[in-house]
Structure formats: structure tokens, C-alpha cells
């Protein structure tokens, strides 16, 4: 598309980006300049014209910067019954004073941790938005879970966004977990303005030997959200990483989720649900890279699309030559509830090893009329029967959330949505 906005954006963003990380930022800038914004010819962004959307909506390429929220705002946005610790962010800036301290976990603004290996997991040359964030991220947080730490309660990232029309928010998160550590993160965002702004977020997660990391994310920021999110993790021997991503709205959302399996006997799990209506557009690109023998990945993404919404699923599985005895499973099922809803789904498997078990399947169809009649024939009203059937689809993803209060919150959100427009 336009190579014109590429330069302008960088100049603007870099002009007011946070300080520190000079080398990291330069590497990001160079990687971005080499790639530019994805064009309509770019294979990776073929179904998601994000550059066009940015050109339409983002007029002033300024970082929105931190702002203040009150303790009441924080309290009222934490789900009922949540018993974990809360970390508060405004436009990606860590608000330490409003946040809990988590016993046994080091949490600090990213700016105080200039020594981290930012960009070593989410490599800027792999994705232009990842590169753009690295060149000019603003705020951010550093989290270190020490060796053997068992963090029983989940840690909630409560992100408040507020921006003028056309502004940019670029959060950055670095998480590292020592050997045998166990921790659960929940990412939840609250949109305080009804303008159209652009969030470009990068999360890097560095796992150790035998770490257990769960990362849950609920996207419900409304019809104006334009968001690109890159989440990438390295898993070592005996480690496990589980992601659950639930998208309920967004003008245009792109999620890049990558799991690099670097040690044997480890496991990567990716579960996703997109429940869309109106003109929402949600694109999930996942990538799991099996590089060593004896590892496993499980992937289940489900879509329910109404109105003229659009869903994209692209699931890459690499099994390298050394990665014998890999088990990799992938499934993507979609239900289209209207004539105008569209799904593009693409499994993409590259298998170089010869002793592996890989399976993938994708389906796109309508609601099962026979099942609907069966429920009605038992006295269940048509609307409720539809709700039950649709919820059943969503439930297969939601059930992977282990934290009860967050799971209940997601169930309530999904049921509310299913009760209104579907």
C-alpha cells in the first residue's frame, strides 16, 4: 500500500517514545523499515487489510501516553469474585501505586529494566507490527517469576485505554519464569473512550525448564478497537504454555500467537473463540514451532459469526526435522449465522520429520437444524435452544480457563452476547 506513511509514522512515534533501550529500538526501527506496513499483496495479511484501516482511522500518529485512573475505576472493572492480584495499566503504562504487589514476583516498569532481552523472543524481523512496537513502545512492564515459585492466584493485567481519535498505544510486556515456576495471567482491557485508536501490543514470555504458564485474554473493547497483538513464547524442556483467547468485538483485530517449543516433553496449547457480529473483523494467526523430539501441541479455535462480521484463522504448525515423535493437533470450526458473515480459514502444516502424529481439520457451516428441532421438541423455546447450541460451541473453548471467577465472567459475557444479537 503506502510506503509514504511508513516513514512519517516512525518519525512521529519515535519523537515521543520512551527513553532507554536505544539498541533495541534501533533494531526495531531497522526491521520495520525493511518490512514496511503489510500491503494487500502480503501473504500474512492477505485477509486483513490492516494498513488500509490504519490509514483511514489513524490521522495523527502520536502515542497516547499514560493517564490517571482512580482506585474505584480499578475496583469496578475487576470481575466479581476475583481473588488474584491486579496490575493496572493506562495506555500500556504500569501504574504501580494502584497495583497489587505479588508475593515472590518481581514486577516493575519496563523502563527500569534496560538489561532485558527485548525482541529476542518476539523477533522484530518476523512481523512489521512487532518491529514497529519495538522501535517505539511506550511504557510497559517487566515481570519475573523466580525459580520454583508457585503463584497460586492468577495475575490480572487490567488495561485501561483512553486516546484521542487517531492516536497510537504501544504496550510492551516482558515475562520471564524460572525453572519449575507456575503462574497464570489474565489480560483484560477496558476502553474509556469511544474514538478509534490503534493498539499495537507485544508480549514476550520466556519459560524455563518445567514451567507452567497460562495466559488468558478477553477482547471486548468495542466496535472501534483496532488492535494488533503479538504474543510469543519460548518453552523449554518439560514446560507447558496454555493460551485462551476470547474475542467478542473489534473493528479490526489481529492476534499473532506464537509458541516456540525448544525443549523435549513440553506442550503448547492454544484455544480461541471469536464471537462476532456487526462489522467486526478478527484475525487469529497462530504459529507453533516444534524444534525438538517428543513434544505436543493442541489447538482449538471456534468461531460464531453474525451480521457482516469477518473471521480469519490461520494455523501454522512447523515440525522440524529433529522433532520426531511430535504430536500436533489443530481444529478450527466456524458457524455462520448470516449470509454476509465470512470466514477464511487456513491450516498450514510444514512437517520435516517423518515419525510424527499431526492432524488438522476445519469446518464452516450453519447451526445444526436437526439439533435445534430436537431441543424444541423437548419444550425448549427456539431462542433459548439456539442459545444453548451456540453456547455449547463457545463452551468448548471457555472450559479451558482454570480460574473460576474469570471463567464465570467469560461465560456471562458470552451468554449476554448470544442473548442479544445472535
Amino acid at each position, binding site marked *: 500500500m503506502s510506503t509514504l506513511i511508513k516513514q512519517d509514522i516512525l518519525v512521529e512515534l519515535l519523537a515521543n517514545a520512551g527513553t532507554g533501550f536505544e539498541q533495541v529500538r534501533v533494531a526495531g526501527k531497522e526491521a520495520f523499515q525493511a518490512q514496511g506496513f503489510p500491503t494487500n499483496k502480503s501473504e500474512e495479511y492477505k485477509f486483513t487489510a490492516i494498513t488500509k484501516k490504519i490509514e483511514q482511522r489513524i490521522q495523527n500518529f502520536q502515542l497516547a501516553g499514560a493517564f490517571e485512573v482512580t482506585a474505584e475505576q480499578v475496583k469496578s472493572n475487576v470481575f466479581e469474585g476475583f481473588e488474584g492480584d491486579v496490575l493496572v495499566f493506562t495506555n500500556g503504562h504500569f501504574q504501580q501505586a494502584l497495583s497489587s504487589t505479588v508475593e515472590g514476583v518481581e514486577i516493575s516498569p519496563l523502563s527500569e529494566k534496560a538489561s532485558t532481552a527485548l525482541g529476542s523472543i518476539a523477533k522484530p524481523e518476523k512481523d512489521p507490527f512487532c518491529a514497529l512496537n519495538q522501535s517505539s513502545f511506550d511504557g510497559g512492564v517487566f515481570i519475573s517469576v523466580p525459580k520454583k515459585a508457585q503463584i497460586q492466584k492468577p495475575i490480572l493485567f487490567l488495561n485501561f485505554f483512553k486516546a484521542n481519535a487517531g492516536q497510537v498505544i504501544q504496550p510492551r510486556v516482558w515475562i520471564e519464569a524460572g525453572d519449575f515456576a507456575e503462574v497464570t495471567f489474565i489480560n483484560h482491557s477496558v476502553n474509556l473512550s469511544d474514538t478509534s485508536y490503534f493498539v499495537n501490543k507485544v508480549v514476550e514470555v520466556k519459560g524455563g525448564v518445567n514451567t507452567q504458564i497460562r495466559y488468558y485474554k478477553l477482547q471486548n473493547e468495542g466496535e472501534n478497537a483496532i488492535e494488533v497483538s503479538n504474543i510469543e513464547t519460548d518453552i523449554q524442556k518439560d514446560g507447558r504454555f496454555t493460551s485462551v483467547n476470547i474475542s467478542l468485538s473489534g473493528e479490526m483485530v489481529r492476534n499473532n500467537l506464537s509458541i516456540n517449543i525448544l525443549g523435549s516433553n513440553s506442550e503448547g496449547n492454544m484455544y480461541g473463540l471469536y464471537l462476532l457480529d456487526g462489522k467486526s473483523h478478527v484475525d487469529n494467526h497462530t504459529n507453533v514451532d516444534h524444534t525438538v523430539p517428543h513434544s505436543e501441541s493442541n489447538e482449538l479455535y471456534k468461531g460464531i459469526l453474525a451480521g457482516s462480521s469477518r473471521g480469519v484463522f490461520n494455523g501454522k504448525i512447523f515440525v522440524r526435522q529433529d522433532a520426531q515423535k511430535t504430536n500436533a493437533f489443530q481444529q478450527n470450526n466456524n458457524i455462520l449465522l448470516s449470509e454476509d458473515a465470512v470466514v477464511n480459514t487456513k491450516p498450514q502444516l510444514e512437517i520435516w520429520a517423518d515419525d510424527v502424529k499431526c492432524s488438522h481439520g476445519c469446518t464452516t457451516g450453519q447451526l445444526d437444524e436437526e439439533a435445534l428441532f430436537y431441543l424444541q421438541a423437548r419444550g*425448549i423455546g427456539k431462542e433459548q435452544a439456539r442459545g444453548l447450541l451456540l453456547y455449547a460451541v463457545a463452551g468448548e473453548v471457555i472450559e479451558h480457563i482454570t480460574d473460576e471467577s474469570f471463567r464465570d465472567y467469560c461465560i456471562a459475557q458470552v451468554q449476554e452476547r448470544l442473548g442479544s444479537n445472535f
Partner: protein
Amino acid sequence: MLTIKNLHASIEGTPILRGINLEVKAGEVHAIMGPNGSGKSTLASVLAGREEYEVTEGEVSFKGKDLLDLSPEDRAREGVFLAFQYPVEIPGVSSTNFLRTAVNQVREYRGEEALDAVKFLTLMKEKMKLVEMDQKLLSRALNEGFSGGEKKRNEIFQMAMLAPTLSILDETDSGLDIDALRIVSNGVNQLKSKDNATIVVTHYQRLLDYIVPDFVHVLYKGQIVKSGTKELALELEEKGYDWIKDEVDSKATV
């Protein structure tokens, strides 16, 4: 209880039912038999309100109401129950949750109070015994991974839970071994009372040894061509359907 007058129905323009007349009174068991393709299952489906079928002529009244005017769910709430020939597997919907929703919606329609979790569970335990239903099955998704026999038993279990006034069993015997057939029939017989009625749709007489009908009707080419008592079923078992077909077809040509 149920009066069917001159019922015609078609699917995608093809007529299947061509003038059915039937009167079912409380306390009665009617068997509908007939060769494949005669319209037996269509009749069951039309009564339950399956939308693919278009009723082109005739009327059906159930307890004084125009049944054809009601949605499938309202028919169920009024007391019509169809035991499906092919019960549907519904992944992700728990059997228990489904049943509680169904039972309480039916109760609400009838102006009864919803059952709380404890009362519902008590009722469920009681009815499970009727068809020797394994509790484990009910903790699974509805019919998912159930064997053929388990699915049919689950149908009768649901029937017991919903306590219908008119039960229509659509080929409930098909694919059942003798033990399962006994269990299912036993359940149906225990649910029988002077206030409710049963229509048994079947191809084979075997089921009627267990669920003894008061009347047997033979359906052929979308019409009831012969009615009688349980002896008619035995005659059909012995002689097959050809003599009835011949009888009807020769009349038609005359």
C-alpha cells in the same frame, strides 16, 4: 385426545401423507405399522412439528387445540412427546442442563413452579431407575458417544421426565437388542396411565409383544389402509406387507 382429519403433508413438493384419519383417546395405545416409505415417520414428524414438512390439507386437534398452529416447543409443552428414531448428538450441551431447562420450561408453560436443583435431582434419580439409566451417561454431553441402545433409553428417560400426555415412539425398537428392547418397553409400560396415550410407530411386530397395542393401523402410500387389533400385527408378521399392498393397489386400479 388426538383427532387427525384428512391430513395431507408433503416435503419439498412431494406428497407423503395423503389423507390420514385417526382418533386416539386417553388410555389407548395405537400402533402404526407399514412398509418402508409408507409415511410412518413423516406422520410422527408432522405431529411433533418438524418444519421441513408442509401440511397441505387437513387438521389435527390435540386436547381441543389446533396442534398444527403450535410451535414444536409449545406442542411439547402441551404434552406431545416424540421419541426420535435417530436421537441427535449434541456436543457441549450437558444432558442434565438440557433436561433441567426442558423440564422447567414445560413447567413454566403449565403454570407450575420451576424445580430447584435438589428437587430436579430427586426426580431425575427416580426416573433413571425406570430405564436403568446409568448416572455416568447423564454427566456427559447429550447423546454424545452413546450407543444405539443408550440413545433410545435416553429418549424414554426424557419422556419419563417430561410426563407427556401423548407419546409418539418413532421406530424406538430399531437397532435394539432384546435386553434393551425389554428395558425400553418396560419403561414405556410403566409410564402408561388412563390419562395418557401412546402411538407406537414400528416396522416390526416384535415390539408389540412388549408394548401391547389396543389398535393397529397399517399405513401405506400415505393413508391408513387397514385398522384392527393386535392380531393384525401378528398377521403382518406372518404374511408380510405384500398382501395389503396388493389389496390396496388392486382396488386403486379397479
